[in-house]
């Protein structure tokens, strides 16, 4: 039958477990290499401002005088350019993604 080429595929999958998952109830599998959320560790940071300079979207602001590091999460594109540039390895990209937000507040560390 030239008309029912899809039947086998549809029936096979009707009996199989669905490929999707009930998302909010079952969290998504995290992939190790994924560029998710940028995380900052205060310990080694020398507030050299390199990350802020390299950031293509100007999401990071560093204040050397007050020893403050801030990021605008809505602006960050998770490219990881700052992670590569950081001389002290204070920045890492975690595979998990950030929580949704509706405010534009800067996250200050």
């Amino acid at each position, binding site marked *: 039958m030239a008309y029912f*080429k899809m039947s086998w595929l549809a029936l096979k999958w009707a009996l199989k477990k669905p490929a999707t998952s009930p998302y909010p109830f079952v969290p998504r599998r995290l992939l*190790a*290499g994924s*560029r998710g959320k940028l995380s900052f560790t205060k310990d080694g940071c020398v507030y050299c401002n390199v990350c802020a300079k390299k950031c*293509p979207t100007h999401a990071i602001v560093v204040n050397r005088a007050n020893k403050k590091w801030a990021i605008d999460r809505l602006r960050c*594109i*998770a490219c*990881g*350019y700052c992670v590569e540039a950081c001389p002290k390895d204070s920045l890492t*990209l975690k595979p998990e993604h950030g929580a949704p937000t509706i405010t534009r507040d800067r996250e200050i560390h």
Partner: protein
Amino acid sequence: MARTVIPFGPQHPVLPEPVHLDLVVEDERVVEARPSIGFIHRGLEKLAEKKDYVEFTYVAERICGICSFIHSQTYCQAVETLMNVPVPPRALYLRTIWGEMSRIHSHLLWLGLMADGMGFESLFMHSWRIREQLLDIIEATTGGRVIFGSCKVGGVRRDIDDETASGILKELDEIEKDMREIARVFLEDKSVKARLCGIGTLSKQEAYELGCVGPMLRASGVAQDMRTLGYAAFGDIAVEPVTRTEGDSYARSTVRCQELFQSVSIIRQAFAKMPAGEIAVKVTGNPTGETITRTEQPRGEVVYHLKANGTKNLQRFRVRTPTFANLPAMLKVLPGCDLADVPMIVLTIDPCISCTER
């Protein structure tokens, strides 16, 4: 029915992106199609004058959400040409692999949209199910699902080790098997054929003269594929352009279906031939000069025209995307078709408006 004007877009369920067509319809037959685009012109080309050329890779990648990797690859190639950067061979192979992966995921996306366009929802869902598997591989290797972000001037940012590579090859076997099932429905099912055969036919001559590129042109019988230029690793991996002669929507989906398997074979060859070594070289200095670089995106030939004057910003950055070149052909075949065929014809060029209005 008297003449009616049916507004098609800029917000229309079949269109992922905004393009507007005023369809003058007579008894469900399209008499005239008046296009208007330019709803989302972002001026990314101008942004090149403000961002330094290294940072701009990330902007170039965001020209399009689907062929993103090949955009960044082409941009890097262009800058490397200007600066005479010797890119390590391993990086070229990795670029080829990721480029072909993005071709597969783009074609699967297109096949899904095409199935959706003809009201074949289950085929659409199954195409995208397979695409998800591939996106997982891409995310695991590059860190992003569609914005790979793994290309940089002078090489690539991440390596694929041998263990991951063998895992990918194993998964590719699975994916290829699934893709064969889908392709069988696309190419053999009679109800699909009823919707695709003879729709939007372009002769070889017309397609060439209207400046079509990519699968549009190849489906009309012109064997033109920029990969034969031998950029990246395509100097070592021979690519035979997939062509058909019918020039209708069915021929175009056939070309794309076959390219899926061609890309899988290219990825396999690339993994087999990939040399060890560095994945990037350090780039210093600023670009100068002018170049026109072309690569083959899933949608066809993309042209980058870069003009630099020795500063860290480019003087002119110009992209001619494949959709832009295929639009005249779409407008050519629209008049005379049925209203039901309009989604088929619009989708058949694989429209990417965000590319077009970079």
